[in-house]
């Protein structure tokens, strides 16, 4: 064997054994395609701490659900765990890596907690068992009631470490539900927990969108009898009516910088797309057609908008330049009813729903009209897809379990799970940015 051959063998050995080996295996674009065997241990009380098994369990369950949804891991059955799972040492010198590798684990998460009064400190670390070293470690301090957020935050950190992009789990999903008897705006964690009602309009609230800057939402409400556009500051509760043009003020979507909103107004007697300022002043009318023009969604650079129009007969997707020029390009050609498009945060794909038989399913397509893919199958009507801010996950509605409920899944259509009660209607989900 020549020297180059030996070098190659050495290099590949290094790749396998080095800490970079784990990270190098993962691609951002295709969650669910590759999976790393991961051992997620129960969190143990730190020396001298009160023991709270239910707290430890909650942290572990939140982490497990997030990491499972990420599609990056094969979770190893805890029943197979050996002695090291019961040892609280978190230093890499204290971890018995050989034992974990015996179980086939390539990644390992261990953690501990310390409870004092109503406060908790959580230490958690991700190890590469092949490289025998810690990849990332974090210490979180907060109230006991914040442990779910702490777990979501570490799940984001795990994804950041392995894919170089943070996960979207420490975030919120806003949605509309009629659980009070009327359609109101709600906010929950991305796993559907910690639900808070944000409006009490006792009317009809619809179609929220998060401001990309600050913790604010816009939505349409019939609070004053007509469908006007409102903005609410989530923590102060302060609400302002920002567009009350005659007729419809619907489907508001912020531009990436939050400085402009695309929406449909029917002040001209028919729904047209408009751009308005964040306080409601009209900047530009984009469409001019006797057809229905609704459901705008911005490209991430703000240069284009995909929307729904029946200008050529049935509802189809079209793309328009926001700078004017009036050039409108048709995007969808299949099916008889294509609706609720959502442009991905990376710009490469557009999600939408399409009537298939007597129900809707979710599809994605490139903005140039190529590579259409069907994402959902099986029972139920799936509608209103929206991306997670990192573009790796999707939230949408499905009535497959009863009423319309909010679901999340990976962007390739795998891993779908329901996050709201199937006994009440919940619709129009939208995924927030990082919730710091």
């Amino acid at each position, binding site marked *: 064997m020549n020297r180059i051959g030996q070098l190659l063998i050495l290099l590949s050995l290094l790749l396998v054994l080095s800490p970079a080996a784990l990270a190098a295996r993962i691609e951002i674009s295709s969650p669910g395609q590759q999976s790393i065997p991961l051992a997620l241990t129960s969190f143990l009380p730190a020396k001298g701490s009160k023991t709270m098994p239910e707290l430890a369990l909650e942290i572990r369950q939140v982490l497990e659900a997030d990491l499972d949804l990420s599609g990056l891991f094969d979770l190893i059955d805890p029943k197979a765990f050996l002695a090291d799972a019961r040892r609280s040492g978190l230093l890499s010198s204290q971890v018995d890596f050989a034992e974990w590798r015996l179980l086939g684990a390539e990644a390992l998460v261990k953690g501990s907690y310390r409870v004092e009064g109503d406060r908790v400190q959580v230490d958690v670390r991700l190890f590469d068992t092949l490289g025998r070293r810690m990849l990332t470690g974090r210490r979180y301090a907060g109230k006991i009631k914040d442990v779910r957020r702490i777990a979501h935050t570490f799940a984001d950190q795990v994804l950041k470490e392995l894919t170089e992009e943070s996960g979207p789990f420490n975030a919120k999903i806003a949605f509309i539900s009629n659980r009070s008897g009327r359609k109101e705006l709600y906010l929950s964690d991305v796993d559907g927990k910690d639900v808070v009602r944000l409006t009490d309009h006792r009317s009809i609230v619809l179609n929220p969108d998060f401001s990309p800057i600050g913790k604010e939402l816009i939505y349409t409400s019939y609070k004053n009898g007509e469908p006007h556009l409102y903005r609410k500051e989530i923590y102060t509760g302060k609400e302002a009516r920002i567009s009350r043009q005659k007729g419809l003020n619907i489907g508001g979507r912020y531009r990436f910088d939050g400085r402009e909103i695309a929406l449909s107004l029917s002040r001209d007697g*028919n729904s047209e797309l408009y751009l308005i300022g964040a306080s409601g002043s009209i900047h530009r009318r984009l469409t001019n057609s006797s057809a229905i023009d*609704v*459901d705008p969604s911005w490209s991430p650079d703000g240069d284009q908008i995909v929307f*729904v129009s029946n200008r050529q007969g049935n509802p189809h997707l079209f793309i328009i330049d926001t700078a004017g020029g009036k050039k409108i390009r048709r995007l969808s050609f299949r099916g008889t009813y294509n609706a609720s498009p959502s442009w991905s945060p990376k710009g490469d794909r557009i999600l939408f729903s399409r009537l298939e038989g007597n129900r809707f399913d979710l599809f994605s397509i490139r903005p140039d009209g190529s590579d259409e893919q069907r994402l959902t199958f099986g029972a139920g009507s799936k509608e209103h897809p929206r991306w997670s801010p990192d573009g790796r996950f999707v939230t949408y509605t499905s009535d497959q379990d009863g009423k319309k409920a909010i679901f999340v899944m990976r962007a390739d259509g795998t891993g779908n799970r329901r996050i709201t009660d199937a006994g009440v209607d919940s619709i129009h989900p939208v995924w927030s940015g990082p919730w710091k």
Partner: protein
Amino acid sequence: MKRLTLTRFAVCAAMIVLLASGCAKKPVAEELTTPATQGVTASETTSDADTGIVEESISDSTIAEPEVRGDDKLAITGLERIYFSFDSFVLGPEAKQTLENNALYLKANSSVKVRIEGHCDDRGSDSYNLALGEKRARVAQDYLTSLGVAAERQSIISFGEEMPLDSSGTEAAWSKNRRSEFVAY
């Protein structure tokens, strides 16, 4: 065919009773008031079927029956809703006939103003349905105006798919929900 005729006869008979007793415009008020009581209770109400919305035995075909519509004056006892096909805001012959009767009523009651509400079934984009509902309201308004009802007496609003008459999700329910309502005030 015989069964169909019998059914039609029965439904027509029911329709005449309804019209004669002046019930035809009542359901509109019921739809508007029942959700309010729901809102106050704010309970564990989960099903749309619990909202107390009254279903009527009126369908497109019954309204189409000329013997109900004829030239007798039964029809102008109140404002009646009109129905549309899926993803359509085109007025069919039945809808036009109903609108002509509604116009007669409005001309006979010149102090009455009317709010025309456009509604859709719940399939498809909510935004699209809001826009479609508006077109259903506007096409009715335009027709009433062409029949001589002053435009100032009419206003329009769309509720899209938000206020279904029947939430059972069947083909029959959907066709009942694709409508324009006429609310006098």
